[in-house]
């Protein structure tokens, strides 16, 4: 009998964090522009010491100004989607649940498209104009969260099956609205709208937004983590969980809102990147087991690792052009999952 202890948790997370760090370093090295790690290291130190004027080359600026923010965005999005995925799988008691199944991503996409349409009619400063799409997306996500919550209630509480059904229906409905908007309103914007369906990390985001995202992640993921042992019991059945002392309605609401916020934040800046939220929790479960106290941080780190790798591939495989990162996540993720699954069963 070896239950999870704090030490074991920290050691495992430490290992994953090291792997993530290594992946980030490699990702900084690879790209359309070649850099040497040594030069990069020197640049980072100069940056930390605020001696930006003495950076070793233009390429240093490129890496720190374009590549590193993109990598950090991938870390954020990967971690958010994975934590949301593991939460929804527990909340809905369904191993096929992913962050998008409750319609949040469709709501975000619709919000972004509406924001695009509205922006053209407003007179905004450039800073505002850059923010309006993520803000619109997040508002769309928030409205969807509220709507699905209302739909998903039975006897005044969230019910897993009803929630799932309500979410799927909402997602389909919103998709239809999006398609309608795209065909009737725009002969333009179509290629740009594809971004929402294939996912894209290449757009540099204003730094104010990045701070907001990190803050949101910490709060939301933290809230979910406080229910980690409750989620373990929830998977055994809601009645049983209640008899074992779990405040099921409270856990459901906290997890639902926090996981939806994570999804909304991620989708607002990167579109819908598929497979990360679905597969990373399963892979982590195969490695670490179903104890959510380990699974949640493991999924966050694992998702960050996976998405940084996928995004690095997306921007290097057909350099200088970019591939959609969603294609990379599917191509890379599925075979890995199959491999791990077979190993476990054998």
């Amino acid at each position: 009998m070896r239950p999870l202890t704090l030490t074991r948790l920290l050691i495992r997370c430490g290992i994953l964090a090291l792997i993530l760090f290594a992946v980030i370093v490699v990702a900084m090295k690879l790209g359309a522009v070649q850099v040497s790690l040594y030069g990069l290291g020197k640049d980072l130190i100069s940056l930390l010491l605020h001696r930006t004027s003495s950076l070793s080359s233009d390429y240093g600026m490129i890496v720190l100004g374009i590549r590193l923010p993109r990598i950090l965005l991938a870390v954020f999005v990967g971690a958010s989607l994975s934590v949301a995925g593991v939460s929804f799988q527990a909340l809905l008691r369904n191993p096929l649940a992913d962050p998008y199944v409750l319609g949040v991503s469709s709501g975000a996409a619709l919000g972004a498209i509406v924001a695009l349409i509205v922006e053209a009619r407003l007179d905004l400063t450039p800073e505002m104009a850059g923010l309006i799409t993520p803000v619109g997306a997040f508002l769309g996500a928030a409205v969807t969260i509220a709507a699905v919550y209302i739909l998903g209630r039975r006897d005044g509480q969230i019910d897993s099956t009803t929630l799932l059904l309500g979410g799927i229906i909402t997602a389909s409905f919103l998709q239809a609205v999006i398609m309608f908007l795209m065909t009737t309103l725009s002969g333009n914007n179509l290629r740009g709208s594809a971004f929402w369906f294939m996912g894209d990390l290449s757009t540099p985001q204003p730094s104010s937004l990045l701070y907001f995202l990190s803050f949101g992640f910490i709060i939301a993921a933290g809230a979910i983590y406080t229910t980690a042992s409750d989620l373990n019991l929830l998977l055994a059945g809601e009645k049983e969980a209640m008899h074992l002392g779990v405040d099921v309605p409270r856990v459901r609401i906290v997890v639902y809102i926090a996981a939806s916020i994570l999804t909304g934040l991620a989708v607002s800046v990167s579109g819908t990147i598929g497979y990360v939220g679905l597969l990373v929790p399963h892979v982590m479960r195969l490695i670490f087991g179903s104890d959510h106290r380990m699974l949640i941080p493991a999924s966050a780190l694992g998702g960050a690792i996976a998405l940084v790798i996928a995004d690095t591939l997306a921007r290097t495989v057909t350099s200088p052009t970019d591939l959609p990162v969603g294609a990379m996540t599917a191509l890379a993720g599925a075979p890995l999952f199959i491999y791990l699954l077979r190993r476990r069963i054998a």
Partner: protein
Amino acid sequence: MSSALRHPPSGDASRATPDVRLSVEQVSYAYAPNPSQAPLFTLEAMSFQAKPGELVAILGPNASGKSTLLKLISGALQPLSGRIFLNGFETHSLPVKTRAQRIALVQQESRLLFPSRAWEFVMQGRHPYGGGLRFESEEDILIANNALAQVGATELADRWMDKISGGEKQRVILARALAQQPLLLLLDEPTLHLDIGAQVDLLESLRRLAAQNRYTVVVVTHELNIAGEYADQVVLMHRGKCLRVGPPATVLQREILEQVFQAPLSVEMTPSGRPRITLFTNK
């Protein structure tokens, strides 16, 4: 470190007398799926009491209200009228966590979405004693091990829950309930999926545990002989009404049983003073 199985704390309210642990007082219930519809099912007002160390059988045919009564006792449902006290505390008004420290409900089956090992499963019983991010302590591990030992399932500890037999699973589920260190142990038709040997094992364990650890055990069943052989008290239910409460010898009598169960039978007394019911076939 305290002894492996410390006594659960007893309540301290005005309704408790030293003897009575569970007190069901004039409890009734009605269930309507829709406010506008007439209630589908009612439980008429009934009362009984149970002591520490006692095994109570709630006996009756299907749809007699047994499971509903159990849910009311467990605090999951709120009675329409009347109250249920456990050591002086109303079960429904306790916070969920405290309730789980005092009342353990043993389900028939456990559907786990992702399989776990038996010891993990039993560890879940320690959840009511932990905070949100608490990790299990040495004491928790000891209690869980003890619980497995008490049901004779120590060697199952490392086995996967989806790979053990029905009887073995039942024992592990019971162990989880024991790990909660409850005052009250509730079981809903625990013998349904078990073969006869396992049934006997289970009831023997329950009787032993009740005596040893001073649990009050309430078992819902429709098996006449189980109630007859193992219960200290029988609550006979029929269509939402409690017909009789008392020791098996007084409750399990031919005329009333034939009415309730609609089958010809005969009741004999065994040397130990317990009734044994034999069913006759029709015609």
